């Protein structure tokens, strides 16, 4: 196994879409995911869609580009979903994060949870997206209307916690 074959970012190849494992190089089929989330034992389904805004702190954005370190990102998304299922009784817990170019108004990440009651479905949904956003090795590059681009707008928790592995989750505050 050579690094050049095993460590390519997912953006480079269609074969790397990995839809079933949490990363997708293609547009996310949100309606299909939602249709698949119904369960006769689930009274509450919660969907979160993270979408590309037309501005970043007031600067006009043309589109975003997401890059992932694929093997670890997929492993971590799987572990985060499993951890959510161990904390709450969930009939469904799925997540998909885009890689590559995502247009303004399009979906960059979707999380769907289903549970008997809505409290669990909301809490688990929020837990999953917070952890994916802070911890999974997925990065975004803002491409601005003026032609410049910038990697960043990243998690900055380590500036407060003093540890690049320790995060602050608004939902737990």
């Amino acid at each position, binding site marked *: 196994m050579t*690094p*050049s074959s*095993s*460590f390519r*970012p997912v953006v480079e190849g269609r074969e790397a879409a990995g839809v079933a494992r949490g990363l997708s190089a293609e547009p996310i089929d949100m309606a299909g995911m939602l249709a698949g989330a119904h369960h006769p034992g689930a009274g509450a389904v919660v969907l979160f869609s993270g979408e590309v805004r037309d501005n970043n702190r007031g600067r006009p954005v043309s589109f975003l580009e*997401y*890059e992932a*370190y694929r*093997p*670890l990102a997929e*492993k971590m998304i799987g572990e985060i979903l499993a951890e959510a299922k161990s904390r709450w009784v969930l009939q469904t817990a799925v997540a998909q994060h885009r890689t590559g170019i995502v247009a303004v108004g399009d979906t960059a990440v979707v999380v769907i949870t289903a549970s008997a009651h809505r409290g669990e479905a909301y809490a688990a949904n929020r837990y999953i997206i917070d952890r994916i*956003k*802070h*911890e*999974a*090795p*997925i*990065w*975004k*590059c803002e491409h601005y209307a003026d032609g410049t681009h910038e*990697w*960043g*707008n*990243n*998690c*900055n*928790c*380590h*500036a407060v916690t003093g540890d*690049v*592995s320790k995060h602050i989750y608004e939902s737990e505050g």
Partner: protein
Amino acid sequence: MKIHVYAGLKDYFEPEFEVEGEARNTDELKTLLVAINGKAEAMLSSCRFAVEEGFIDNAYKLKSHDTIVIIPPSSGG
């Protein structure tokens, strides 16, 4: 030792490159990398390191055949 970098680190290094020189752990690797491009120092201080699918810390003994992945903070917010 092979190095792969992502996202903002690509402003300072090639996406994939080899480092020469001795680095027994991630602190020593950081020192080597800062010697290559001193402007990367601040960003490197917020990065994590991984080998294959696992994070490593400074206690991990780097091997000459390892491919080290350097991981900036995630997209966050």
